[in-house]
């Protein structure tokens, strides 16, 4: 099954709409609640990342009996140093974003904790693709 959602830059109000919809789907599929929770936490973080740091993008989800593959594909600006960004407390978020309660530098580390496989590909000036996979059984 393939699902797709749009993410708009700076639209924190609607952050979480993709993860909310995917959560509903996984519940109907009888996926263990603790696994659903991990998917939701990881995707919500990734969604907020795309809203806070990128110029918008798309979220896609591909679900089969064994796993869910999530991709958050944004349109830039890209992460210059992925290794740096993967560390807790490292954030390039603007003061405005921090004021909204985001930007603590826990995004990528938190995603990593919750998924079974994480792959971040980024080209400065082009965009970032965060690929997350979670086993469903």
């Amino acid at each position, binding site marked *: 099954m393939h699902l797709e959602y749009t993410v708009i830059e700076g639209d924190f109000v609607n952050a979480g709409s993709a993860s909310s919809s995917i*959560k509903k789907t996984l519940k109907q599929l*009888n996926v263990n*609640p603790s696994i659903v*929770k991990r998917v*939701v936490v990881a995707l919500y973080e990734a969604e907020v990342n795309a809203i806070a740091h990128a110029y918008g993008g798309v979220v896609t989800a591909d679900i089969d*009996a064994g796993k869910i593959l999530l991709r958050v594909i944004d349109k830039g600006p890209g992460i210059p140093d992925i290794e740096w960004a993967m560390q807790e407390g490292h954030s390039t978020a603007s003061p405005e974003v921090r004021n909204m309660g985001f930007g603590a530098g826990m995004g990528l580390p938190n995603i990593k904790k919750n998924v079974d496989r994480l792959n971040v590909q980024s080209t400065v000036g082009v965009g970032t693709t965060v690929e997350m996979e979670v086993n469903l059984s």
Partner: protein
Amino acid sequence: MAFFHALQINENVCEGCSHCMRVCPTEAIRVRDGKAHINENRCVDCGNCFTACPHKAIFVKQDDFDEIFKFPCRVALVPAVFLGQFKDDITVSRIYAILNEIGFQHVIETEISTPLYTEKKNEMERSNNNKPLISSFCPAIVRLIQVKFPGLVDNIMPIKAPLDITAMFIRRKLVKEGWPEDQIGVFYVTPCAAKIAAVKSPVGEEKSSVDGVINMDSLYNRVYKKIKEQGHDYKEVKLPIAQLTSDSILTSLTNGERRLSISEHSLSIDGMDNCMEFLEKVENDEVEGVDFLELRACDQSCPGGILTYNNRFLTCERLFNRARYVAGKERRGELTRAKEVEDEHDYLYENISVEEVEPRSISLDPDISKALEKMNKIKEIERMLPQIDCGICGAPSCDALAEDIVCNGCKLSDCIFVQRNMEARKDMKVEESLKIMENIWGYEKIEKFR
């Protein structure tokens, strides 16, 4: 396995008008053959349908009142809300005297054990790492979480509600006084349907300490009849077990638990829709830093229960006044403490916990590959349906119909839009589409126009 639920439909009265179907928060109701039907596995006994029904066709199954006489030793477990049903000039002591007269040798207020409940709750708030801790006080909310928010079952505090703790207490007291266990009948006077389900099929417990349930509205009728018969000639009985504290009186009202919460961040929310909106956010992990959640299915909590008679705001007012009066006595040191309950503290505290709550999710299929297959079909059908949720198919929404088509043998042609299209393309005769409507809404509604 089907779950017990107290809300039932009287098919002789039901007109199949679908008002109930449209307000059910778990989409548990369908109309077939001109009658509403409740899916037992989805129903959480919140009572929205009961309130919405214009024909009073929905009723709450209760134990026959004469059941109490099967027990030589009879206890009425009465919540403060019951006493809030009467006008101020009818004293609590007078109501107790009447309850004695109609058959209960013992009357005890449900909230007598709330100090113990609060103590345990606060202990859990202190040690809890899985935030937010969700109160287990309202059984409709516990069931709602099991059915619709299975990811949050671990957040529900696994402790008994005050009604069960008080039942445990009175049972032990009477056994100590020499009554054999099986001769004691404890009957709870319930303001809502969910508490009946909680007694008949408790969550996280094998068996409840309560033997039966009496609907508050029917007991109100019995008591009020006596009041009318008595006129000015009545007696009063003081409770043998000391009065409630002001905090205890307020427990079943909105904010009743939150106001005693030791956490920095706690919320109290009432009303089914409000609770669902917030639980959705909690489940999405969008809510940070909330330590404790008091959630109550009814507006104004228990005073808004569907089996109450008095207006919920007036009940709240009466309970507030009673609490204020008691608070004055507390300040002056005049209140005798519920010493008998305190004496049983250790025993009750030891038995206050229940097992963790299990999810009761409504998935498409236990097998994930099959569920996925079904979901693909459902999505395909959803795209064909008009998405206006008119309910003419007998299901509450287009998405619900799509699911019913894949899982419960409904047909795409149950949709009125599909029917009209088929008629236009000459794929269906008018008589055929009328037959479909008849199957859903019943013969009588169609016959009028023939």
